[in-house]
Structure formats: structure tokens, C-alpha cells
């Protein structure tokens, strides 16, 4: 692979041209070896290997016995079980509605926010960054609980007020699909913001300048010029979150299960609970496999739609670093309005809920009576936990994003910057890993880690954990970088090629620096996700490799909400520190 990618233009009708003859290699000696390209190739091979593991695990488990992974004849039992589950059509339709709906909610919030952040001179726009990041610190179940306290039909605070004001019946019932969609969409808006910012940021200001001098209003330029140019990235991000939406259990569980609103993630949850408590990986895997196939189809459609995306490159050697154009007064007001609404609905309420929960001995809705019992006791207890989980948590936060971004950058390069046959395959492979339920992924790695333990005793170490979590996030990082790399004009590489710079070196010294802002963004937000990552760490962490998120989850599922919320607040603090560091880096580098 590494040699083949030295081919620049695709030779018509055949694969990559033959690798360079060894004769010249020898003649040019050390300089003949494109070391970065070798590393790049190795990284991609490693990535493929690592990504294939859970995929194989998925297939294996899907065709294995219900408990999964056991031996036995391959059978279709799991599919039968899944297909015969009650109301499958309804479940699928609801899941579709949930996926599409939450992606729409997400786009409606994240795209304008990302636009405001990257393409306008809105004062104080950095606050968006804080909002989006803060949201990620809060466990979904707590958010859900907060909204249950507000809007549950029996004694939800707001519903009660509504009743007192003379409204008939509850104002709204939080146990409904529309709330699941709304809250899940809100939840995605933050991550989506982080994925979209890099792409929007690198698009040449010229696009808007040309629009402005021809009398096209800013919003229209944004909608009709910027959006189409960013379309490949936005579509990619949408697909990404569609897949995630199908899998996330927080809201579907907390708000859907009480009202018996079944979606695929509830099914996966039920199967992974099993009848006797032993997870039925097989059934979960069957669903995951179905999803993976669906993703393959979606990606196929994506490619058809984005055929010409590579011609939209706008990062050229020409002047690019311009200040954004000024927003009109009305635009500014609308911008602040949007940020305000997002801050209030998406962030303020959950954050307040988190803090409230951390100060109460047991969880209950806000009231004056409860106010009297606030205490910091939970923080004292939590501080013991901190000492235990910090080393591994910090290690993961340092290693996982770095590894994921490195993998994703290599893969992104292969897919967007070469004409190698089969590069699309890698793209699809990466996206397919999203379809693998986390639990199946974790267990696949558990098996691989254990079966190779005799030769490589990695299993049980923090490094192994980091590798697997990084693998989980490659798709995320990849989605973030893919869009930006598409924006890099091929002339930059061509200029390097005619100057005698080899492809690997060009990648390291031209392509990567050209998108380095995005690398930092991707790194940062994967660090955020790593702090939050749960299932994999839960399953793969063992003695001494406990992390923050598993503690938070553990306490919350044991009903120790105050402890878990206290840890959540601490986590929020960590994220804030990370964010400040990030902002400083971003400012210094003036991306």
C-alpha cells in the first residue's frame, strides 16, 4: 500500500502504477526511502487490522449462539430472534424517526453555531466552544432526569406550574418520542459543532467576499454558497450522528422505556442485559450487523451524492488568512439569540441539574425544602475516587486522542488525497465500525486481547484500553478530518511533488500543517469523548485501570447520584481546563 500510493494521477483503467524499480532506490540511497510514507503505510495497515477485529467479532457473534462468541455451528438464530421480536417494523420506523429527527435537531443547532463561530466576527463567540464542550461533561441520564423533573406529566415542575396557571392537563409529556429526539439532538449539537468547525474554518473567505460585493446577504451566502461547499462534510457528519443516534441508549432508556417506546437501542440494551443477566451478544450483534449493512448502503449513496466533492477544494496557496466579514446588527442579534437558546435549553439546565444533584444527599427536584439540605459531602467522598482514577484517566486523555487523530489523519489522507483503488473501502470500513455496538466491540477486543495474551501480554494494561478506545474514536476523528482534507487544494501537493518532495513527506509537511487547526480540534474533542467513554472502559478496565467515566456510571447506576454528579462536576472542571488550554493553543497558532 505504501508504495502504491506514490502514484499521483490515476492511470486510466488500471490500478496504481508499479512500484518504483529497486534500481533507483539503491542509487538514491537513504534519500530514496520515503520514511514518512512507510510509517503512513504501516499506520494504515495497523488501522485496518485493528478495525477488522471488531467487525469480524460482529459477524462471528451475529452468526454464533445467542450468548455470542461461543463455538457451535454458525446459525441464523440470532437473526430469527431479532426478526421475530414484537413490533419490529414499528421499532424500525421509530428508530428511523429518532435518527433523522435528532440529526435534524442537531443540524439546526450545530450548523448555525459552527458558522457563527468560524465565519463571523461575533464578539464573544468563544463562549460557543465552552457551551458545546460543557454539554459533553454531563452524563446523559442526568440530563434526562433533569428534564423528567421539569416535564414529567404527574408532578413535573413546569407541568405543575402550568396546571396552577389554569392549563388543562400537563403542558407536555417528557416521556415521548419528540422529547427523545429533541434531547438527543441537543446532545449531538455539541459534538457536531466540533466536527463541523474545522471544515467551515478552512473554507476560503473569498467565497463570502465575492458574495458580499455582489450584494448577496450574509445568511444567503452561508446557505447557498458555504453550505454546498461544506456539504460533503455536513453530510458525513449527519450520517455519523444518524448511526450514533440509533445506538445511544440514555434518552431512549430513560424517556422511552417508561412509555414503552421501543427503538433499536432499547433492543440492543435488552439483549445485552440478557435473560439471566448474561449478555446475549449474539442478538445485539445481529442488530449491529444489520446496521453495518445499512451504513454500507448509506455510504454508497453518500459517494454518489458527493462525487464531485473533491473539486470544491478552497485551501490554496493564495491568500487565505482574512478576517471574517462583519455581521450586521440584525445578524448579531439573531446570533446571540441562538446561542442564548442553546445555552439555556441545551447546557444551562443540564449543568444546573448536575450541580444540584451533586449537592443533595439523594436526588429530588429543586425545592426550598431541599435547599436546606445541600452539602458538599459528596465531594469529599469523590476526592478518594479521584486519586484512584486519575492516572488512567489522564493517560487515556493523552494517548487516545493522539492515536485516534494519527490514525484518522493517515486514513483521511489515503481516502482524500490519493487515487488508490479501494480507498473508498477504507472509508466504508471506518464508518461501519460505528455500527458495531460498543459492547460487541469491547467484547471482541476482550477476546482478541485474551487469546493473544500468551504472546503479547497487553490485555489488562492501560495501553490496551487506550488502543481499543482509540479504535472506537477513529471514525469520529476521521469524520472530522475528512471534510477538511477535502478542502486542501491538490496544487499544494503538486507543488511539493514537482519540487522533488515525496508523498509521505508531503503529507507530513504540507497536508498536515495545512489542516493542523482541524487536527487540534479533532484531538480536543476526542479528548472530551475519551473522558466520557464508558462501555469499553467498563468492560476492558480491570484492576487498577479504572477511569472517571466508569466511576460516574457505576455510582449513577447504583443510585449514588450525588457522588456521580460530584464526579461529573469535577469532570466538567477538567474539561474546562482542557478547553482553556485549547483556546490558548488555538489563539497562538491563529488557525
Amino acid at each position, binding site marked *: 500500500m505504501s508504495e502504491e500510493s506514490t502514484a499521483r494521477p490515476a492511470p486510466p483503467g488500471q490500478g496504481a502504477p508499479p512500484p518504483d524499480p529497486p534500481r533507483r532506490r539503491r542509487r538514491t540511497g537513504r534519500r530514496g526511502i520515503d520514511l514518512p510514507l512507510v510509517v503512513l503505510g504501516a499506520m494504515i495497515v495497523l488501522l485496518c487490522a485493528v478495525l477488522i477485529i471488531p467487525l469480524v467479532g460482529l459477524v462471528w457473534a451475529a452468526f454464533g449462539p445467542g450468548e455470542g462468541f461461543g463455538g457451535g455451528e454458525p446459525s441464523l438464530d440470532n437473526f430469527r430472534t431479532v426478526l421475530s421480536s414484537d413490533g419490529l417494523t414499528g421499532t424500525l420506523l421509530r428508530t428511523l424517526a429518532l435518527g433523522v429527527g435528532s440529526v435534524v435537531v442537531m443540524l439546526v443547532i450545530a450548523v448555525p453555531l459552527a458558522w457563527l463561530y468560524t465565519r463571523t466576527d461575533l464578539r464573544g463567540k468563544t463562549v460557543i466552544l465552552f457551551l458545546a464542550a460543557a454539554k459533553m461533561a454531563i452524563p446523559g441520564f442526568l440530563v434526562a432526569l433533569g428534564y423528567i423533573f421539569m416535564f414529567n406529566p404527574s*408532578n413535573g415542575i413546569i407541568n405543575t406550574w402550568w396546571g396552577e396557571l389554569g392549563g388543562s392537563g400537563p403542558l407536555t409529556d417528557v416521556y415521548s418520542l419528540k422529547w427523545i429526539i429533541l434531547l438527543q439532538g441537543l446532545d449531538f449539537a455539541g459534538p457536531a459543532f466540533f466536527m463541523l468547525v474545522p471544515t467551515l474554518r478552512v473554507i476560503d473567505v473569498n467565497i463570502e467576499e465575492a458574495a458580499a460585493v455582489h450584494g448577496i446577504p450574509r445568511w444567503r451566502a452561508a446557505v447557498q454558497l458555504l453550505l454546498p461547499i461544506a456539504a460533503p462534510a455536513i453530510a458525513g457528519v449527519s450520517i455519523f450522528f444518524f448511526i450514533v443516534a440509533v445506538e445511544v441508549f440514555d434518552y431512549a432508556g430513560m424517556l422511552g422505556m417508561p412509555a414503552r417506546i421501543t427503538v433499536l437501542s432499547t433492543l440492543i440494551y435488552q439483549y445485552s442485559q440478557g*435473560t439471566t443477566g448474561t449478555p446475549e451478544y449474539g442478538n445485539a450483534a445481529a442488530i449491529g450487523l444489520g446496521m453495518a449493512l445499512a451504513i454500507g448502503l448509506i455510504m454508497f449513496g453518500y459517494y454518489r451524492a458527493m462525487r464531485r466533492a473533491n473539486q470544491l477544494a478552497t485551501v490554496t496557496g493564495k491568500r487565505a488568512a482574512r478576517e471574517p466579514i462583519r455581521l450586521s446588527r440584525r445578524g448579531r442579534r439573531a446570533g446571540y439569540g441562538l446561542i442564548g437558546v442553546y445555552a439555556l435549553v441545551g447546557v444551562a439546565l443540564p449543568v444546573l441539574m448536575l450541580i444540584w444533584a451533586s449537592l443533595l444527599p439523594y436526588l429530588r427536584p429543586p425545592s426550598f425544602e431541599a435547599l436546606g439540605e445541600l452539602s458538599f459531602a459528596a465531594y469529599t467522598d469523590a476526592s478518594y475516587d479521584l486519586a484512584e482514577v486519575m492516572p488512567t484517566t489522564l493517560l487515556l486523555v493523552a494517548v487516545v486522542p493522539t492515536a485516534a487523530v494519527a490514525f484518522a489523519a493517515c486514513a483521511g489522507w489515503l481516502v482524500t488525497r490519493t487515487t488508490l483503488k479501494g480507498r473508498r473501502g477504507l472509508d466504508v470500513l471506518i464508518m461501519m465500525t460505528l455500527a458495531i455496538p460498543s459492547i460487541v466491540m469491547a467484547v471482541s477486543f476482550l477476546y482478541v486481547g485474551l487469546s493473544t495474551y500468551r504472546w503479547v501480554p497487553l490485555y489488562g494494561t492501560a495501553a490496551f484500553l487506550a488502543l481499543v478506545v482509540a479504535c472506537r474514536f477513529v471514525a469520529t476523528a476521521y469524520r472530522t478530518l475528512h471534510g477538511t482534507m477535502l478542502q486542501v487544494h491538490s496544487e499544494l501537493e503538486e507543488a511539493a511533488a514537482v519540487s522533488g518532495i515525496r508523498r509521505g513527506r508531503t503529507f507530513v509537511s504540507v497536508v498536515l500543517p495545512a489542516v493542523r487547526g482541524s487536527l487540534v480540534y479533532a484531538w480536543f474533542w476526542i479528548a472530551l469523548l475519551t473522558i466520557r467513554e464508558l462501555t469499553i472502559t467498563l468492560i476492558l478496565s480491570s484492576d487498577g485501570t*479504572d477511569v472517571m467515566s466508569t466511576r460516574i456510571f457505576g455510582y449513577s447506576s447504583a443510585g449514588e447520584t450525588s457522588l456521580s454528579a460530584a464526579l461529573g462536576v469535577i469532570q466538567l472542571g477538567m474539561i474546562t481546563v482542557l478547553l482553556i488550554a485549547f483556546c490558548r493553543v488555538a489563539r497562538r497558532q491563529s488557525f
Partner: protein
Amino acid sequence: GGDAGSGSGPSAGGGKLPSSLKSLSEKASKEGKLRLFVSTDSRTPAHARKLSRALHADTGVNIDITFVSGEPDPSFANKLVQESKAQVAPSIDVFATTPLVVKQLSGAGLIQQVDWGSMEGVDANDIWTQYQGIYIAEIARTVLYNTKAVKAADAPKSLEDLLTDKWRGKIVTAGLPDVFSPLAAGLGVDKMLDFVRRLLEGDRASMASVPTAIRTQVSSGEFPIGYGIRIGESQRAAKAPVDYAPIKVPVVPRAGLVIKGAKNPSAAQLFLYWLNATDEGRKKAFEVLDWPRYTTPGTDLHALAQKAGGVMTADIDWWMNDYEKANRQVAQLLRK
């Protein structure tokens, strides 16, 4: 039943272990460490410290206890099994769990042989001989009510009460099989299934996604009645407006196991002995670990059993064999 004669231990005076355990306690001291799997009922490191101190105060043995928590018992057991196949040293010493998981571990040969019977003060009834386990705690599926929303007099008095129209739409429970299956210990499988079917039909009960949400939603007043979980330790401490309805409810026994290949087998044995056979140990099991036994006075389960006139339970054979079947049948019902 799993009843055990209480207070027969020699340690009433505290600080001393029977002399027959001398060598064990010496070995345990030498090991000085213990890793205890506490399942999903996450206990904090602070708790672990408290427990260590109590153990030391009571027995004079100094053991540094750490908790391992996270996954639910069955999947953790599953992992242990896989690890042992790959010859990875187990990451815990003590596993305290319910019958089905005991069976799973025992089937995989993961349980260390311990001659519990030879230890002074251990009730023979507390020993799951075939499985090398020792009875230490119970999981209870209780009925809770919100004391602000429901007067004590109005609280349901029986499971049947829950099915009346009075509580229609006011009950919260969780849709997991093992929330309901223990009922079969007292009601028999058919009656249990019938109960579940009726409880879940229509809009009678709402389903929380996790059992712990039940008590939060009851204490917050969103639902006056909850079924499926005990009152939380912090709720008890903070006097949350929840109480048990005086209904006889099932308790699932929990046994402690020493894992084969454990790094600290003696400490594990000693610790389990302490939890089971000494008064102080039993008390701390409830106070620190929140692992009560309804036979131990001072625990919430003891009070409930007094109020309701006992608990539903069965002998170990039933738990090991029939319980699993009941579980499957409920699971099937729940998935409908």
C-alpha cells in the same frame, strides 16, 4: 430456608478470632491486601477504608481492601472465565454474587475450594457446599411508597393491592427479568408470571430503564409506588420520603466466593468469614457495604421482614435450578 442461627459467633467480645483461625489470620495479615468485587452497587474508596478499619478493629488483622466495581455480575463473571482460559491472573479475590452467577463460575471451575464448615462459628446452613460459597447477603425486590404522597395507612398491603385500580398508572418498576423472577420463590412460577402480566398490562406501571431510577422517581414524588429495589443508603440517611410497604417480598441470596488463583486467598477467606460469622462483620456488611440480611437485626430488611411477616425465599437448590427457568420465562414475557 436460608435462615442462619444468629449470634453464635465467639466474637461478641470483639477483637479476637477463635484460636483455630490463628494461622489463617496470620497468613491473611501477611497478604495484607484484598480485592473485592462489589458489582454495580458502587461503593466508594472511602467505604473500603472504613471496612478495612472495622476489620482491623474487630479481628486485629490488617488488610487493605480495595473495591472492584463496574459491570454487572454475569458479564464480569463471563470475563473472569475468559481470562482464566487465557491464563490471565484474576483481578479480584472475592466475588459476592447471586446463585446463577455462582453456578456459572463454579461450572467454569473458577471457585477456590474452601472448607467453610471447619471454620468455627459458621452455620452449616450458610454454606453452599456444592459451590464453595458462603451466604453473606441478600438482594431484595421490595415495594416502596412515597410517604408524602401516600399515608402509611393507605399504603398497599399485598402484591394484589398493586393490581387494583387505585394504583393504576402510579407504579414505577423496571423491565428486567430478575426484578420479577425472585417472586417465584414465594408465589411459584405461574402465579409470578400472572402477577407480572397483570402489572405490566395497560398503563398500570411505568418502566424505569434501571432499577435505581425507581427509588429516585418514588422519592421525588413522580410515582407514589415503586417495585423492584431497596431504599438507597443515602436516602435512608437523609430521611427521604420513602418507606417500605408492609408486603412480603422476595430476597435473593448472595454468596461470597474465593476466586481460584486469587492473589490473597487467605485474606479473602478470613474476610468472608468475618462478614458471615461475626456480629460485627454482619453489621458492617450492612452499614458499609449495604449488604443486609433480613436475619440481622438493625438492617432495613430485618425491619421489613418484621413488618410484613417474613420474606419470600427458597432453598439453595431452588435458586440454583428453578430460578433460572423462572428468569427465562419472565424475560420472554418482558420482551413481548
